[in-house]
């Protein structure tokens, strides 16, 4: 058993990767979905196994091909990675289980094997980013996941997806390239690509200015991938026009992974070495985070398309995560990491609900969804619960993140008041746009036509599970908060 445990970090990436060609070959109807879902479940199980191991003991490491670090590529899974892995694999699994009917309706049978293969590639890439401890390896997996997600997003029937994917492609490539430039600069100065080794060697570098420039490139590049305001322009359209199942999966984890890399890289390599970097990190990212929260929520208020509304809401929530990280203290980092988990729960559930609604009503603009609550009561009830989690009502997961954020902000002296005001403003704006949706779906009179779609009970079940998870992790907070607290500690270990 121990032997298997030691192999798990590698298996997390290898299992979906090897299944990709297999899935591509499965032409018969439904087999591709089955294979993809089974793989996703296995990945989820691996993630759970690794998480429990980490909760009991030390982080897991693995040297690829037996080559020890820093010569070879090393994999390392600690609390932070474990949390992200749970989010990624969990989102993938739950979405795949419920998405079959939706994907059947949006993607032609002939293309489905390719679609599922791309999904598994994305899963590989995202898991790989989180699992690896090598900077260039991150880039490789980042590209794999990005390219796979471009394919996933453009796979749907909506032709508007194509220009959106093009923009995403251009911006994503710019981001990845910037990251690569940054890594290149650091490699040039330190001679290593292994993150831990980098951390040790950066101290010895004489001229710190290339490191500083590298930090700039990496931060901006990853910020672009993570849709940090104002580099978020690609996100709304990409999420809106993608197939609904894809939106549910990507909204839960794609940007979070980029944030993971940003935080990890910054705290591990730059914070301990560049003088005054923590202040700069804070003062650079805090205003962006604040703007993200306020502006994105305000824009969401005026959106008529449900998916684009939720996409802008995601940009605001990413702002919350950045806000927590920019506070550079224990509570702030814990808040940030916990919110990665909780937002994935909330947004994932919301987009799964949208998937179910799209199956029933066809269109997801607010005009079309008038009076939807009467016709899809359970789905809308799940939507309301997930939306309450987004707002941060006590009893839901969102409340926990907001609690930690406020606690972190209170430590900031005079800054506390504007920060808390921002968090409050974000919640209020969230109430307003959630209210618009609820008013439209619950109180507006529905037009006479009966919706034609049919929602299989499995989908409703998946949606309800997602919504219940929000309440469960709002009350029994042990798992995410322990992981987050450990992650925060580990991140701050390297700080002077």
């Amino acid at each position, binding site marked *: 058993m121990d032997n298997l445990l030691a192999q798990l970090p590698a298996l997390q990436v290898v299992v979906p990767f090897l299944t990709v060609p297999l899935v591509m070959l499965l032409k018969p109807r439904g087999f591709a979905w089955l294979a993809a879902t089974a793989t996703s479940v296995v990945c989820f199980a691996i993630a759970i196994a690794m998480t429990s191991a980490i909760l009991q003991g030390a982080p897991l490491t693995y040297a690829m091909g037996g080559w020890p670090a820093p010569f070879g590529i090393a994999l390392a899974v600690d609390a932070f990675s474990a949390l992200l892995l749970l989010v990624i694999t969990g989102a993938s699994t739950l979405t795949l289980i419920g998405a079959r009917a939706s994907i059947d309706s949006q993607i032609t049978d002939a293309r489905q094997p390719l679609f599922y293969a791309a999904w598994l590639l994305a899963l590989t890439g995202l898991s790989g980013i989180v699992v690896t401890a090598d900077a260039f390896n991150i880039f490789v997996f980042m590209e794999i996941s990005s390219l796979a997600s471009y394919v996933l997003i453009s796979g749907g029937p909506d032709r508007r997806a194509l220009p959106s994917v093009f923009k995403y492609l*251009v911006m994503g490539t710019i981001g990845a390239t910037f990251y690569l430039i940054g890594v290149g600069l650091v490699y040039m100065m330190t001679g290593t690509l292994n993150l831990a080794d980098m951390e040790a060697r950066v101290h010895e570098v004489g001229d710190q200015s290339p490191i500083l420039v590298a930090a700039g490139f990496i931060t901006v590049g990853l910020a672009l991938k993570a849709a940090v305001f104002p580099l978020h322009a690609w996100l709304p359209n990409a999420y809106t026009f993608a197939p609904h199942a894809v939106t549910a999966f990507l909204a839960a984890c794609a940007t979070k992974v980029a944030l993971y890399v940003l935080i990890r890289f910054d705290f591990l390599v730059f914070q301990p070495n560049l003088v005054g970097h923590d202040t700069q990190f804070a003062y650079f990212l805090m205003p962006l985070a604040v703007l993200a929260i306020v502006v994105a929520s305000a824009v969401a208020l005026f959106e008529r398309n449900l998916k684009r509304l939720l996409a802008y809401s995601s940009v605001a929530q990413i702002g919350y995560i950045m806000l927590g990280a920019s506070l550079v203290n224990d509570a702030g980092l814990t808040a940030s990491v916990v919110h990665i988990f909780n937002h994935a729960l909330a947004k994932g559930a919301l987009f799964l609900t949208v998937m179910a609604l799209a199956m029933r009503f066809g269109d997801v603009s607010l005009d079309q969804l008038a009076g939807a609550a009467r016709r899809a009561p359970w789905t809308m009830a799940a939507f309301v619960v997930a939306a309450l989690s987004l707002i941060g009502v006590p009893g839901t997961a969102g409340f926990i993140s907001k609690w930690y954020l406020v606690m972190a902000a*209170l430590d900031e002296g005079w800054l506390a008041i504007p920060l808390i005001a921002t968090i409050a403003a974000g919640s209020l704006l969230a109430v307003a746009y959630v209210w618009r949706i609820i008013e439209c779906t619950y109180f507006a009179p529905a037009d006479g036509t009966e919706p034609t779609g049919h929602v299989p009970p499995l989908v409703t079940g998946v949606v309800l599970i997602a919504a219940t998870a929000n309440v469960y992790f709002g009350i029994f907070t042990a798992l995410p908060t322990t992981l987050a607290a450990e992650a925060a500690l580990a991140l701050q270990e390297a700080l002077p």
Partner: protein
Amino acid sequence: MPELFSPALILLAGALLGALLRGSLRTAVLFAAPAATLWAIWQVPDGVATTFTFLEYYQLEPVEGSPLRRLFATVFALMALGGVLYAFRQAKPYELCSALAYAAGAVGVCFAGDLITLFIYWELMALFSTVIVFCGGTPAARAAGIRYAILHLLGGVILKVGIEGIAVHTGSIDLQPMLAHNFDSWMVLIGILINVAAPPFSAWLADSYPESSPTGSVFLSAFTTKTAVLALMLLFPGEQVLIWVGIYMIMYGIIYALLENDARRILAYSVVNQVGFMVCAVGIGTELALNGAAAHAFAHIIYKALLFMSAGVVIYRTGKHLCTDLGGLFRTMPITTVCGIIGALAISSFPLTSGFTTKTLISEAAVSEGLVAVYLVLTAASAGVFLHAGIKFPWFVFFQKDSGLRPKDAPWNMALAMIVFAALCIIIGVFPQTFYEFLPYPLEAYEPYKAGKVLFYLQLLLFSGLAFFVMLPLMKRTLTISLDTDWLWRRLFARVYTYCQRLLETTRQTLMTRLKTWYAVMIRLAQRTYADASKEADVELMPRSQPIATTALWIALLLSGYVLAYYI
């Protein structure tokens, strides 16, 4: 065993079951839940009964009992029961279930032993009271509901910030008396004051209560503000600023009620006025004053519900709610009129009603502390209450003139509820000593019915009645509303927002046209350089890639900013 669970959970279970069941089974649950809660309340022992760990290091105390808490919880449960009796045949099922959940939040706050539990139930109350406002059904109700939701959420956030501050800085989340001396305690105080409808946030009450359904306003009037009063009693007894907040609320309520035309809005302003008495008493802080606040809260919930019930019947039967449309209804609605009058007498602290035996405790407390100004204001206010609620409300609704309306009297369940509550008003007025047993502090040697006092109050009240009829020509009802502090955000902010929005829009448009012309120039340059057939595709692509261009611009700015900032 029963003391381990908060009685609030019984009401919540009732609300949930009520939502899922149908027909007579649902009705049975709706009545059984408050009744069972009433029983459970008296099983809760004094002191902390259970603890629960939250976020790994906070010890929550979901159930803590004391005489004061049990008193408030009792009247809340009574209110739930009476309200269900009043409304069960007329109200929509989800309004009734929301009302039970709302009451559950109130009872939960009563027994909360720590700040976090209090906050959780607080938010529960805000959520379900919003639903009740929405059940008014009209677009105005929905608009008022969203304003209500936002304001209460704001209050909740402020309260949460204060609670977190206290938790972080003192390490304790226990509910204990404190004074507002630092940021954290001020935030908690402000959060509670928003719920208690203190100025400048008092507008929400008069804005939202009249928009709800005739049955909804009965529930709304009972819980939010009184729970906030209990919170003040537990957390800020003797906080001096509350005396002045309370006095302002008292006067505000009277003046605005005098100007008002809508029957239920008169009562809503009256709620602010009465709660002001309680807030003032909490500010005085002596045992007598706190007894007065608790007693007054108990009596107030009952007679205010009675007044809203009578107003509700009128609206239900006539569909009209403006004083200008009403009048002369005593002819066909005797029960409602009599109950309304009893409620009006009670609110005015007329001898032999519950108001007389409870509100006078507060004046007495002011006297024993030597607060002359406060005492004089409270006395004038008692006269004023008779003026705006004791006489004005029944006069304009039931007498005044013949509006031509001849509606039927109340349906049997509404009439029964009103009679029960009216009886309670009289009983507490006539047999106060039994009631005094339940007050939190012992009440030694207080005689409510000393001859001199009775005479004083009769003089006070009846002469203010004289003033009313003398000044009647000056108090013609007009089809108007009175501006309140909410003008600031309903008008001013809205105008500023539209202005900013328009400004941004014009800026964006000019920028876009500039960029477009620039692109067109570039394209023409490119066309001249590369005589290529595929130019069509290029021309298509470039204007649409504005987001890419904008992002690229931002990237450049951020990157340079990042690096440059380091050198500053």
